[in-house]
């Protein structure tokens, strides 16, 4: 490594990191300050806002609803998407082009667009909009689940593994359950955590499809913005801590896999 790096390199990275860090730091300090309207530094520090937040039953209920939606969609995709991707990669590789086209389509249809179609299709159909939202989430995380599952299947050479298992007398389903699944689990877990953390922060679909009747953490935060800035910043910090924990698990799992390979 070149030890005498020009100052320029520190400057560019420093500028980017600073820009990304400052809003987070500001929110962090704000969430711990008693009052901060006129002075350049907060008038005092307190845990009060966090206490108030976690004793608000509306917040805890909103948390529960967010978990139901994002965990529900993630589990649904584990049960339905992972086996489907497995079958396509192993038995019908020609269909991978089709999945990739689907992925481009999901990128071209962000929340706002798909919400318009979902409202037109299902708002008077009798299907509960909560179910519709979970369905839309299922479609939305396809790119991440596909990427993770397919890469894991390639890494363990699933096609040869399946052949070996079947020669030894296992049925396709047994082989998938007992041989493939335990081996791709770390990769699938990483994709699931990633999907979950993306869905947990989702606002557009929830707001447009069910916002009024099904208040998730994001909707709760939106309503708190104009009520109490301190509580809103406490929510933002809790949310960021949650994503940080999920991301660090993702990094750990990915790294330990790389070492064993």
């Amino acid at each position, binding site marked *: 490594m070149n030890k005498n790096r020009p100052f320029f390199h520190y400057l560019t990275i420093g500028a980017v990191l600073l820009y990304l860090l400052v809003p987070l730091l500001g929110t962090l300090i704000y969430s711990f300050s008693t009052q901060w309207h006129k002075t350049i530094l907060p008038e005092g520090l307190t845990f009060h806002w966090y206490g108030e937040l976690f004793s608000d039953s509306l917040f805890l209920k909103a948390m529960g609803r967010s978990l139901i939606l994002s965990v529900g969609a993630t589990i649904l995709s584990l049960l339905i998407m992972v086996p489907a991707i497995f079958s396509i990669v192993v038995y019908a590789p020609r269909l991978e082009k089709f999945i990739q086209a689907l992925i481009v389509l999901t990128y071209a249809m962000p929340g*706002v667009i798909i919400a318009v179609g979902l409202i037109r299709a299902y708002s008077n159909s009798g299907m509960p909009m909560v179910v519709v939202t979970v369905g839309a989430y299922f479609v939305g995380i396809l790119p991440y689940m596909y990427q993770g599952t397919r890469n894991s299947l390639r890494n363990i050479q699933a096609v040869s593994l399946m052949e070996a298992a079947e020669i030894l007398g296992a049925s396709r389903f047994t082989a998938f359950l007992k041989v493939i699944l335990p081996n791709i689990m770390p990769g699938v877990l990483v994709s699931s955590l990633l999907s979950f953390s993306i869905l947990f922060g989702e606002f557009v679909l929830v707001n447009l499809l069910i916002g009024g009747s099904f208040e998730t953490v994001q909707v709760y935060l939106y309503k708190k913005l104009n009520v109490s800035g301190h509580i809103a910043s406490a929510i933002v910090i809790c949310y960021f801590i949650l994503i940080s924990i999920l991301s660090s698990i993702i990094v750990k799992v990915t790294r330990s896999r790389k070492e064993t390979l």
Partner: protein
Amino acid sequence: MKKINGMLVASLIPFLFLILLFLFIPLFFMIYGSFQADGGTGFSFKQYQEIFQNEYYRQAFKNSILISLLSSFIATLLAIFATYSITHFSSRIQNRVLIFANLTSNFAGIPLAFAFIVLLGNSGLFTLLFKHFGWETLSSFNVYSWSGLVLIYLYFQLPLAVMLLYPVYQGINKHWKEAASLLGASSTQFWLRIGIPIILPSIAGTFSILFANAMGAYASAYALTGSTYNLVTIRIGALTTGDIFAKPELGSAIAGLLGLTLVVAMLLNEWLTRKVRRDLS
């Protein structure tokens, strides 16, 4: 005759069913709705005509395209330099920076808009600081203005740009640089004649992804001022769910045009990615 693969069929049916139900059916309803007159009374091009004739909706497209181009341009430019600088550090530090970029890329929408209100809102931290030092021009900065929105867009574009461009520099082979310098090329000459031509398609591809990302963004602008910004996504949301001004057919048509813009951006990216000369590496 080939035996039907039970595993394949059993796993594909529920998957395709859900995709049909929550991707293709809404897509169909949206496109179908966009070709209906108000209230769904028969086939008509009226909605598309309305978009092109009504100054307000043309302005929404103009605003969305402008803020997307501007934020993508600044983010790509910053990321080109910052990512190049990252490659000069040890792999340990490179990893840390990438993890941080990955982490902050999740920080978007409502929480992000709020963080900027805390910093630059009416009694924001920086606003107070600037007032204290008497810097009038800075303390009168309004986060609810267009420039405030550009700062927020830049925040969620920047980590994405860094993550997309980082692998690009890995593709620049060290030996090419050595070969070029042995043949007498200066560093500037290397970048002008070899480096930049090689990475240019990837940079343009990154730019088109960022552009699509910004065009589809909704939550940050909505969090700042509700429905007052005249952006395409905000208009779609207001037209589809607004109680008084709901015009779902017009909303569908705008959504259709936005979708078309995004498809073009994605295809451009695919085409550019294919232009990257893989035969060299």
